[in-house]
């Protein structure tokens, strides 16, 4: 039925002409093998009962690798029966030696729950006296009630947990788990590609601690790792667990037939180059697919987008499906666990025709068979995109993936250079387990857990010099003593109270209040609460609007009331640097005589929700502007920055390669502006809204910068009246990137490779007149972790090398004006800053 639908769509010009690129991946049937005869008979029976009669070659290979005692890395392909690949060897070994214990570590609780249920089902079918033991397979995480915990600790042999729980509960109390550790044979780390950057560096240290404890109890567990699509998975995996791994790629496993489209919504306003909103196209395609009996998933980039699209789809499909509430659903973080389980369940049984989700469904939670994946807006990474496309496909049937592009510059770049998407390798995952500050924190935990012998100074693969220096530092601080044989922890506080995730773990509870009752509807992370549930905000939950009555930050509670769907709110957020102080700096002179400064120091950024706009639901016009009284959220961290000097800027300006100066619109500008508004009858020429308390903007159809003479640019024919929000939309497609911004983009791209972190771990601000540096143009790279963990200092130390690399990288890139892999994507009708960025770097470096 899907192939018919695809045929219809391809023959329909209004759809087909928007497909900028498509690829077909043919089906490949995998080789099947009989169960090896040494496999435990109960397990064979259980597998058969689950409908599995053969093994794929990679599953057989995995069994052999485990049998040989090697560590294993499973690189996942689409639909390769990944969980079975590790479940079979572990269960086989358990049935042959019923004391076998195994630890399963998942990046999220949802995934561990999902996998736990599957494992329990398989175990229960083995019909063995050992598998009926109570608590044999148990989830153990923050949601496990404390009344159950002692019995799990006493009895469980298959523990499903997450790295946070290992770090904060299991490892520091390992003596209670001595039975489990004594017999620990396998450690499964599922979906390791999630452990990127700082988080991944922490997880690698949790693994080091885990291995020490296993060793303490005389266990030498085998590692089994699985990963989604990433670049160089084996290098990363070996860094994560510090063991040689045998890599298995499911080459011979069946690949489902798949069709992938890159779809660019059409321009609906040629004058301004405005495209149709991707929601419109998604809605239309879903509307045509549902009557065909297909099931689909739509990935959106934000929680709010999920809700808004849900409302739009439900309104539209009222007549199309039997029960919109049941058949079209949403899924995202912030829903209560019970609701999420319920949605997962209805997805599995196929009740849901279409689910709209954030990347919360990107990981391998079983959601049954889906036919189509829609991705609205490029998710930001190639590997994420493939991961999301991988969510559709079932039982040897054709599936379809459609990436619907937004008007974001990166998306539009992909529209015009689709080869970038097809040909780029998935991103590599970068971690640095030896980051001194991360190491310093985990070393104290390790010391607390098992004293470190100083004759055999070993902690992971950390060099003896670094290790002994850090231990001496702990002794110096009084947090450790050095005995005749070991170092011991002597701090009076427990060392493992820090979080290994960079995002705050605090959440705000959302309480729905009626006249009589109140009950929890969901949660929002503390970081987002300010802008999502400030008082007066309209918050959407499963497509229903709620008015936030009050946000109590102290008690972490937001009180909601039901309300009508007549408006929507938009927060106004002010982000700025509120403090900067350099700890070290260098004034440098380039070979060509220009001065610039590099510095490293403390920075404080403030992000404050100052107010919000109330927009009418139907027209999306501003009805009201309101202020809110919320404290700023501050991030105190460390930063690296590069500041240019006046003479350098002056030189660039004279060579015409400096576009950061504000436009001098000329003496007739004010008058021309008034005339244009008068001519356009004070109406926005795009959406038709009249001026109210503020004057509309006047926009240059051909960008001002393209003219030499201001009066030429300001001719009335080149001017048009637009309301602020339309103006913003229009500007998006004609934006001209400055050289400074282009260099900033390149910085954000290259810095993580040198700081050994993820792109999300660093933030960047580019300011042509940075007040904290005497109004000089500055690029500031800051760490996203409060206090920083030395990433900024590292950048400062290798600044000249970093600048050289950036220059080489930009120059070597074959694009002409800029692209996502060098100085950033260029707006569809705008201009890139590649040439200016190169000019700038040349003056600094040569």
């Amino acid at each position, binding site marked *: 039925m899907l192939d018919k639908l695809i045929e219809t769509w391809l023959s329909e010009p209004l759809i087909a002409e928007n497909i900028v690129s498509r690829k077909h991946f043919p089906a490949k049937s995998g080789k099947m093998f009989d169960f090896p005869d040494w496999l435990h008979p109960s397990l064979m029976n259980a597998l058969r009962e689950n409908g599995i009669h053969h093994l794929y070659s990679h599953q057989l290979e995995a069994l052999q690798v485990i049998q040989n005692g090697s560590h294993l890395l499973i690189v996942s392909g689409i639909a390769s029966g990944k969980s079975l690949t590790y479940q079979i060897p572990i269960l086989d070994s358990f049935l042959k030696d019923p004391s076998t214990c195994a630890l399963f570590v998942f990046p999220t609780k949802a995934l561990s729950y999902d996998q736990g249920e599957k494992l329990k089902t398989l175990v229960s079918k083995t019909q063995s006296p050992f598998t009926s033991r109570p608590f044999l397979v148990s989830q153990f995480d923050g949601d496990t009630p404390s009344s159950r915990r002692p019995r799990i600790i006493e009895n469980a042999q298959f523990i499903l947990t997450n790295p946070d729980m290992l770090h904060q509960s299991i490892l520091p109390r390992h003596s209670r788990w001595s039975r489990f550790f004594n017999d620990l044979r396998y450690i499964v780390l599922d979906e390791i590609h999630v452990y990127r950057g700082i988080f991944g560096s922490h997880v690698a240290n949790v693994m080091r601690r885990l291995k020490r404890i296993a060793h303490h109890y005389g266990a030498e567990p085998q590692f089994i790792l699985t990963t989604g699509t990433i670049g160089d998975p084996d290098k990363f995996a070996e860094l994560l667990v510090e063991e040689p791994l045998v890599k298995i790629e499911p080459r011979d496993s069946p690949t489902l037939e798949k069709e992938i489209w890159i779809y660019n919504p059409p321009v609906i306003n040629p004058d301004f180059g405005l495209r149709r909103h991707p929601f419109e196209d998604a809605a239309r395609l879903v509307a045509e697919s549902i009557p065909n009996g297909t099931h689909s998933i739509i990935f959106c980039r934000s929680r709010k987008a999920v809700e808004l699209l849900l409302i739009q789809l439900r309104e539209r499909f009222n007549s199309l499906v039997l029960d919109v509430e049941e058949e079209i659903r949403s899924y995202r973080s912030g829903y209560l666990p019970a609701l999420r389980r319920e949605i997962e369940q209805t997805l599995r049984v196929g009740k849901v025709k279409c689910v709209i989700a954030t990347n919360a469904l990107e990981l391998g939670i079983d959601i049954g068979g889906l036919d189509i994946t829609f991705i609205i807006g490029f998710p930001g990474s190639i590997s994420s995109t493939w991961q999301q496309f991988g969510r559709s496909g079932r039982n040897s049937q054709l599936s379809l993936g459609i990436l619907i592009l937004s008007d974001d510059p990166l998306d539009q770049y992909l529209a015009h250079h689709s080869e970038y998407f097809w040909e780029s390798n998935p991103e590599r995952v970068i971690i640095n387990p030896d980051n001194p500050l991360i190491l310093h924190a985990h070393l104290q935990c390790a010391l607390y857990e098992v004293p470190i012998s100083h004759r055999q100074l070993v902690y992971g693969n950390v060099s003896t010099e670094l290790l002994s220096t850090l231990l001496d530092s702990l002794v*110096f601080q009084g947090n450790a003593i050095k005995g005749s044989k070991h170092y*011991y922890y002597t701090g009076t*506080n427990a060392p493992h109270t820090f979080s290994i995730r960079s995002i705050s773990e605090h959440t705000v509870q959302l309480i729905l209040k009626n006249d009589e009752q109140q009950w929890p509807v969901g949660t929002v992370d503390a970081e987002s609460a300010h802008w999502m549930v400030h008082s007066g905000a309209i918050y959407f939950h499963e497509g229903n609007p709620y008015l936030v009555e009050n946000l109590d930050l102290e008690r972490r509670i937001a009180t909601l009331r039901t309300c009508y769907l007549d408006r929507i709110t938009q927060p106004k957020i002010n982000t700025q640097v509120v403090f900067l102080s350099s700890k070290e700096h260098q004034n440098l002179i380039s070979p060509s005589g220009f001065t610039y400064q590099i510095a490293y120091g403390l920075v404080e950024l403030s992000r404050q929700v100052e107010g919000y706009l109330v927009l009418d639901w139907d027209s999306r016009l501003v009805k009201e502007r309101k202020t809110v009284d919320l404290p700023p959220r501050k991030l105190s961290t460390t930063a690296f920055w590069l500041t240019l000097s006046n003479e350098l800027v002056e030189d660039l300006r004279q060579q015409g390669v400096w576009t950061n100066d504000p436009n001098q619109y000329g003496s007739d500008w004010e008058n021309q502006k008034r005339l244009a508004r008068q001519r356009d009858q004070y109406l926005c020429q795009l959406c038709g809204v009249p001026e109210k308390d503020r004057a509309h903007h006047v926009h240059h159809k051909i960008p001002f910068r393209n003219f030499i003479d201001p009066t030429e640019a300001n001719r009335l024919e080149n001017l048009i009246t637009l309301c602020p929000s339309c103006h913003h939309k229009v500007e998006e497609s004609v934006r001209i990137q400055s050289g400074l911004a282009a260099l900033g983009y390149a910085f954000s791209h290259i810095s993580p490779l040198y700081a050994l972190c993820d792109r999300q771990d660093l933030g960047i601000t580019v300011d042509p007149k940075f007040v904290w540096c005497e109004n000089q143009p500055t690029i500031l790279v800051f760490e996203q972790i409060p206090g920083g963990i030395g990433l900024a200092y590292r950048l400062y130390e290798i600044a000249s090398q970093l600048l050289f690399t950036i220059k080489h990288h930009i120059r070597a890139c074959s694009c002409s004006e800029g692209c996502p892999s060098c100085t950033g994507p260029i707006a569809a009708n705008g201009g890139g800053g590649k040439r200016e960025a190169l000019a700038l770097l040349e003056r600094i470096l040569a």
Partner: protein
Amino acid sequence: MNELKRYLKSLGIPLSESEQEIRSQYHKYPDQVPFPNTMTLKNRYGKVYLLHETIPLELERDIDSCEIPIEIQKWLKLQSSTERLAIEDFLFIDVETSGEYGGVGVICFLVGIGRITKNELHLFQYLILHPEDEFSQLAELEKIFLSAKGIVTYNGKSFDLPLLQSRFQFHQIPLPTSDLLHIDLLHLSRRIWKNHLPSRTLRAMEATVLGIERSVNDIPGWMIPSIYRDYLLSQDASFLIPVLYHNKMDVYSLARLYLHIAGLFIHPMECTIENAGLIFRLANFYQSIGEITRAIDFYTACLPKLSDECHRLELLDSLGLLYKKQKQFEKAEETWKVAASLGSINAHLELAKYNERLKKDYLIARLWIESAIKLLEKKEMDRFERSKWKAELQFRLESLTKSKLP
């Protein structure tokens, strides 16, 4: 300073300037141990300091037998065995730890163990002056635990015992404590004193119940981990003197509290003659361990002395229930009638059930229900309780009217 150190320092990791300083921080044993009566036990794993002291116990009253009172045995849910359970076979235990948190990095650097013989307390304190000696300490403790039948602690069920066990598990020594009986006096005191003491910490108990006063040498328990840390960093063992005193007093109080409670059970009337409240709670306790006759005696004994109306009602309700259990229905009826006259809805209900089921006097039964319903309207109570009573009374009334009455 080398490259690495400079780098670490610029990241804010504190480092000593001189190599010398680090080397001098090598931990040694203190040159002198400033505690009297100290023996050094050396085994092949290391050394333990053992402090021994004999403390006379001034008994409040004559306890001629050192047998553990039957009430406590029943409370421990022991099957009545022929084996005589003597307090001499029990260890009074209190541990001091190196951290507040119950994780695996916390050690019990000091374990105080008391044994009662006749009217003396023999105190043994097992102290280690370096974490490296923990294994040898546990080896000594293992011997003692294996020689005992049980332990007495204060909150040991949630604190001292799990901590000790986790240390044995850490060193992979089979638990020597798993067969031991455990009298946790915190739990027992809660039963006996309920809400009648402002605080049920051991310190509060010893001050209010036993009248023990500690000297100025004592320190609050929460300071102990940081004192031990101060000792480790300075290697000056005199820091530990107040900790040893604190531990000694804890074990001493523990023994005294046990004897006090045992005394209550052995000579109950004598100890409690002036305290009607205590008799009442003892009666409660007897009831809970199934000593019905004793409970009835105690309830009846304190009935005339109780001044508090609420308690009197509670007492009458309990007493009625016990008579009912013993099938002394006339006495039960009498008790319920007194309680009903004082406004007990429960007694009304019991009287109704009694009349309905045993006397088959349905009219009277209905009268009791109706009067209870009226009473409920007037009485002050929380919403939940009211609706619970209301439902129950309504149900009784309906079933009576439907089946038994015209």
